[in-house]
């Protein structure tokens, strides 16, 4: 049931790649930042910012912190390259800077709250639903439903609204979009806000289902989510959902059939095999993600 969370993160990745041709490595940092902020604010103890807030408030603040961080990242990676050096996608720079930010945030959290995994006890996490013979945890189910709802909303936003049209124009060609009177610097942050919200929600759902958080929870989840995104095809939000769910399923099945030792081979083997057969993923757009990087 990891699939729902992976789908979330994969949608975040695919959004920045599809819109901005930018592989955003700060997503694991945002994921972790939201989960850790929620833990810190929602518990009482001797750690900094221990406020003992109700969980819902703590989670909302976690999302807010992640969105703020995401906007900061936009200012120093994408926007900077864009305004100063023309088409940033010619350089691999946003990639390098976003890794710099990943280091900054992970170690910021590390110095603030230490590296030990912390326990998170959410009231909902205990609840299980029994459907037939299946036992489904409420957080897992919630993450799945939420993922579908959010992506449906996202698709509607992209295809129906004025903002969505502006975003698609930027995805097509940022310079032409500017000439058509779209203020790229005011629209692009929207992508980063969406990425922040998606990663933060995924982080919170992760904390709710696994009941632990640590400064490095984002890394492995992000790697799997990237695999999911590529499986589904870059730039396609529904593809990311399918890919994320698929990776989650393959992982769980592989672990239960062959044991944890071997969990990486099926996921990455499947990915490599698929790319050999179909170099654009399952539902990838022929144009996205193939430009110079």
């Amino acid at each position, binding site marked *: 049931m990891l699939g729902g969370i992976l789908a979330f993160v994969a949608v975040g990745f695919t959004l920045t790649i599809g819109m901005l041709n930018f*592989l955003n*490595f700060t997503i694991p940092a945002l994921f972790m930042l939201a989960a850790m902020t929620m833990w810190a604010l929602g518990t009482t103890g001797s750690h900094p910012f221990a406020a003992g807030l109700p969980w819902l408030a703590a989670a909302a603040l976690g999302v807010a912190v992640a969105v703020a961080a995401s906007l900061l990242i936009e200012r*120093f*990676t994408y926007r900077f390259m864009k305004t100063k050096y023309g088409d940033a996608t010619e350089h691999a720079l946003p990639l390098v800077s976003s890794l710099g930010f990943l*280091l900054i945030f992970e170690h910021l959290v590390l110095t603030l709250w230490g590296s030990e995994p912390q326990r998170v006890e959410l009231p909902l996490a205990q609840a299980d639903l029994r459907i037939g013979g299946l036992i489904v945890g409420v957080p897992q189910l919630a993450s799945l439903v939420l993922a579908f709802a959010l992506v449906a909303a996202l698709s509607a936003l992209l295809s129906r609204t004025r903002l969505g049209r502006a975003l698609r124009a930027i995805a097509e060609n940022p310079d032409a979009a500017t000439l058509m009177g779209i203020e790229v610097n005011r629209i692009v942050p929207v992508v980063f806000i969406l990425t922040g919200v998606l990663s933060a929600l995924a982080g919170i759902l992760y904390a709710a289902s696994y009941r632990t958080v640590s400064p490095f929870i984002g890394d492995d989840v992000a790697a799997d989510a*990237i695999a999911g995104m590529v499986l589904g095809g870059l730039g396609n939000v529904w593809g990311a959902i399918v890919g994320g769910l698929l990776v989650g399923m393959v992982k769980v099945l592989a672990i239960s059939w062959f044991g944890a*030792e071997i969990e990486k081979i099926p996921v990455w083997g499947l990915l490599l095999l698929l*790319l*050999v057969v179909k170099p654009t993923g399952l539902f990838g757009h022929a144009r996205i993600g193939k430009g110079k990087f």
Partner: protein
Amino acid sequence: MSGYLSGVLAQLAINIVIAYSVFLPAAAGLLNLGAAGFVLVGGYTAGGLTSRLNVPLLAAIPLAGLAAALIAFLVSFPILRTRGVYMVLATFAFAEIVGGILLNIPALGGAAGLSVSAYAGLPLVFTVTALVVALVAWLLATRFGLAMRAVHDDENVALLFGTNLRLTQVLAFTAGGALGGIGGALLVHQFNFIDVQTTGVMFSIFVLLYVLMGGTQTAWGPIAGALFFTLVPEGLRRAAELSPSLKFLESSRYIVFGAAVVLVMMWRPEGLITRTLVERCYGLLRRNG
């Protein structure tokens, strides 16, 4: 020379070799996020040869390079079918699979890792590194180097001018794989140990990071990147040890380092060392000399 200093220097030299393994494909326009894969192949080949078959170290290092080159050659064909971000992730998938397979070979230590007794001291590591640097500098000066640059700048135009695109890319990828294997062989014999964890997800990312940060236009770039990535964190750590007023750096040095990465990229978006910079330096030398 203190053990600490020689340890840092050996790490730096090995990082330079591994950086060149990513630089060669990058110079031909191929981003390789699978450095760990080739390092693991080379490391386990060399380690297996010296510890299990008693092959001398000097023979094991080139053999490790050959093994990694062979693997790189074979995987380059499927991987070159993909482009852009897909290619970055295909190489990454390759590295993960290599790690996953090695984890399940009990004869090579499995999850516990592989310990070897043969030791590659600083002189050997430095000699190999110097040879690698010379080799890459020579490669870039040949017609093949020119072809790589042309392919990097514009594949279509290079093709129009009669460059063999596929051959150039396959060779660049294979040569990069060989260097990764040599780097892995040095790594395992410098630390007398290798396991799949030492070259985890972050390893490949970091290698690509310091190559891009150093700059992919000239052979100086990877050296600059490896220097920055090895020495800045170490330097910050030393500063925290030596001066009490910088004590805060001890725990937060990676925050400072991450900020340095972001700032350097803002200041020099094409990498620390660019072609223009090198040519300007040559110009200055000529005017003065």
